[in-house]
C-alpha cells in the first residue's frame, strides 16, 4: 500500500512546464472530421484541439497515434500527440466509425 501516496501525486493536475506546443484545430460536424487530413511537423509535440459541434458525444481514437478520448457533444477537448516520425497516422470516431475518419500526416 506504499503506492497510494505516489498515486495521489500522479493524480495532482500539475501543468506541464515545457513550452506550449503548437495548437492544431479540428472540428467534428455531422459525424465527420474537418479537415480530414491534418498536417503536422515531424519530431514535434502538438496539441490537437478538437471541437465537437455535434450534439452527441464522439470518441477520438487512433491505434497508430495510441490515443483515445471521449469528447462530449458541443465540447472542446485537447489531445497531445507526438513527437512523431514522418508518416501517416489514421484516426477515427469510435461512435461513428463509418463516417468519422481522418489522418494525421507528419512530415
Amino acid at each position, binding site marked *: 500500500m506504499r503506492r497510494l501516496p505516489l498515486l495521489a501525486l500522479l493524480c495532482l493536475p500539475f501543468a506541464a512546464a515545457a513550452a506550449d506546443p503548437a495548437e492544431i484545430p479540428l472540428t467534428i460536424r455531422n459525424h465527420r472530421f474537418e479537415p480530414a487530413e491534418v498536417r503536422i511537423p515531424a519530431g514535434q509535440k502538438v496539441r490537437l484541439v478538437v471541437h465537437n459541434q455535434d450534439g452527441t458525444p464522439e470518441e477520438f481514437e487512433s491505434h497508430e497515434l495510441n490515443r483515445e*478520448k*471521449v469528447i*462530449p457533444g458541443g465540447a472542446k477537448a485537447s489531445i497531445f500527440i507526438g513527437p512523431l516520425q514522418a508518416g501517416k497516422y489514421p484516426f477515427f470516431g469510435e461512435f461513428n466509425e463509418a463516417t468519422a475518419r481522418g489522418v494525421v500526416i507528419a512530415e
Partner: protein
Amino acid sequence: MLGAAIIVFRESLEAALLIGIIAAAARTLPGRNRWLSAGVAAGVMGALIVAALAGRIADMADGMGQEMLNACILGLAVSMLAWHNIWMARHAREMVAGARAIVRDVADGRRELSAIMVLVAMAVLREGSETALFLYSLASEGESAGQVLAGGALGLAAGAGVGFAMYAGLLRVPVRRFFGVTAALVLLLAAGMAGQMARFLIQGDILPPLANPLWDTSAWLSANSPAGTLLHVLAGYDPRPSAMQALFYLGTVAAIALGMFLARAPARSATPA
C-alpha cells in the same frame, strides 16, 4: 442495433474477463459472490454518474480531466490487483491445505474481499461510462431506444459469456497449479493497466513519452485483429508502446512479483517493500 451490440461487447469484454479471473482467483473466499455483485452494482452506478457529468469532467484540469480520471481509476485498479496477488501469495498455501486455516481465513478474507469489490467497481466504472455515453448518443441519433437497448443487451451478454468461459476454464486448472495460473493472469492484467495509465498521462501531457514508439509490431500483430485484441485485454499488448508505457508495465511486473516473493518467503524481514 448491431453497432450497439459490437461496441458494448468490446467495452464489456475487458471488465468481464477481469471479473472472470478475479472470481476464479477468489473462489475459496466465503461471501465472494456478494462482494462481486456489490462491485458490479457500484461500478454501474458510478458509470452512469460519470456519463452524466462527462462534459464537466472533460473541462476539469485544463481540459485534461478525462485523462486524470482514467489514470486514477487505472492506478487504483492496479494497486488493488497488486494487493490481491500479494495477499494471495501469503495465503494460497494455507487455503489449498484445507480446513485447518478456514476460521482465520474468514476473518482475513473479508478485508481482501472489499478490495475485490473496489477492483470490480473500478473496471465496470471505466468501461461502463464510455458505453453509457455511446448508447446515449445512438439513442439521441434517432435509433429507437428499444433497438439500442436490445443491441446493448446482446453485446453485454456476449461479453459476460466470454468472461464466464474464462472463469469456467480456470476452474478446470488442477488445484495445485491453480493459484499460480490465476496469479500470473492477474499480474499481466495489472501490468497492462499500468501501461494504459501511462498512456493517459502521456496523452494529457503530464508525463513525457520518452521514446515513441519504442517498437512497432503492428505489421505482425495489429491491435485490431482478434488475437491482438485478446492479447491486449489479457496482457496489455500494445503494438506501438512508448518507452514510458514499457517502464510502467515492467515496473509493475517487478513490484508485484517482488511483493509476492517477499510475502511468500518466511517472515525473515519484518519490513516488506
